[in-house]
């Protein structure tokens, strides 16, 4: 039970629900809530099927991002501080992938698996800046992908979760741009 579920209930029912659930661990993030959210399991029909497809596409991209950061980490091109940053960001993508997979399962879907092999432009990664630019490009794309996914989920809680991940990807993008010596936040809006 989460605060997100209380909105559709009467105040007294909501209060009872909250009191019943107060013994559970309530995390502060929308994404973490999703993995254990009972309401998701009750979502059926074409809307749920569409949501599962969108989540699986996002999961596929997250798994690819994890692999891309692995390429960067193993490239031997990164200074220690940059390597630490890459591993941290990769860890975030692993967390995104984990919660997306759990949410797909909760909705009754089958989560896509990581591909055995990804096709990255490895030959063009010759310097640390090349690796940073490659990662920044993927993170920028991820921001746009989640921005495009937020309005198309049938379940508003999934939109909220996607927006939460979008915020994280945007921070990655900004930090990577900064590391490249570029303006970390190039504009007031993302597209």
């Amino acid at each position, binding site marked *: 039970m989460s605060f997100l579920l209380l909105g559709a209930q009467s105040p007294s029912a909501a209060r009872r629900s909250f009191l019943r659930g107060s013994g559970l661990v309530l995390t502060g993030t929308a994404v973490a809530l999703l993995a254990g959210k009972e309401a998701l399991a009750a979502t059926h029909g074409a809307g749920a099927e569409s949501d599962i497809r969108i989540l699986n596409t996002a999961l596929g991209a997250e798994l690819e991002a994890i692999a891309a950061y692995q390429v960067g980490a193993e490239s031997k091109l990164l200074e220690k501080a940059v390597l630490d940053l890459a591993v941290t960001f990769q860890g975030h993508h692993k967390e995104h992938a984990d919660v997306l997979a759990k949410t797909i399962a909760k909705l009754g879907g089958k989560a896509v698996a990581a591909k055995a092999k990804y096709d990255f432009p490895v030959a063009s990664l010759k310097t640390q800046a090349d690796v940073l630019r490659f990662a920044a490009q993927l993170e920028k*794309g991820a921001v*746009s992908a989640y921005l495009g996914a937020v309005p*198309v989920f049938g379940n508003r809680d999934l939109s909220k979760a996607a927006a939460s991940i979008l915020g994280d990807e945007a921070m990655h993008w900004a930090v990577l741009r900064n590391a490249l010596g570029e303006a970390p936040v190039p504009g007031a809006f993302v597209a």
Partner: protein
Amino acid sequence: MRLRILAALALALPPAASAAGDAARGSQIYERCAACHSIERDHTGPRHCGLFGRKAGTVAGFEYSAAMKHSGIVWNAKTLDRFLANPLKAVPGTAMGYAGVPDAAERRDLIAYLAKAGACTK
């Protein structure tokens, strides 16, 4: 007086559709697609080289949704414009869970860039 009326009409009407988009601007718009697509390589989405004239859902080795495979679409400026405006409406069941590019001028630029990408080299 006639000039004033024409000027007022010109301001009131949306800009006339230009024949072709700007591929350079389209290249920047294409950066939004980078999490899932690239020109030469398959990622979460299929590669975009050789897109024009290709039947949707036919890049060898890429796993498409059934909806895309059976869409019957052949990609050209017109079909891309319709799809990019609202992918989920154009091909219900597509794996491209993306709201689309609502701005017609941006779509024209993006399509101009995709057209310029040309054939695949590998």
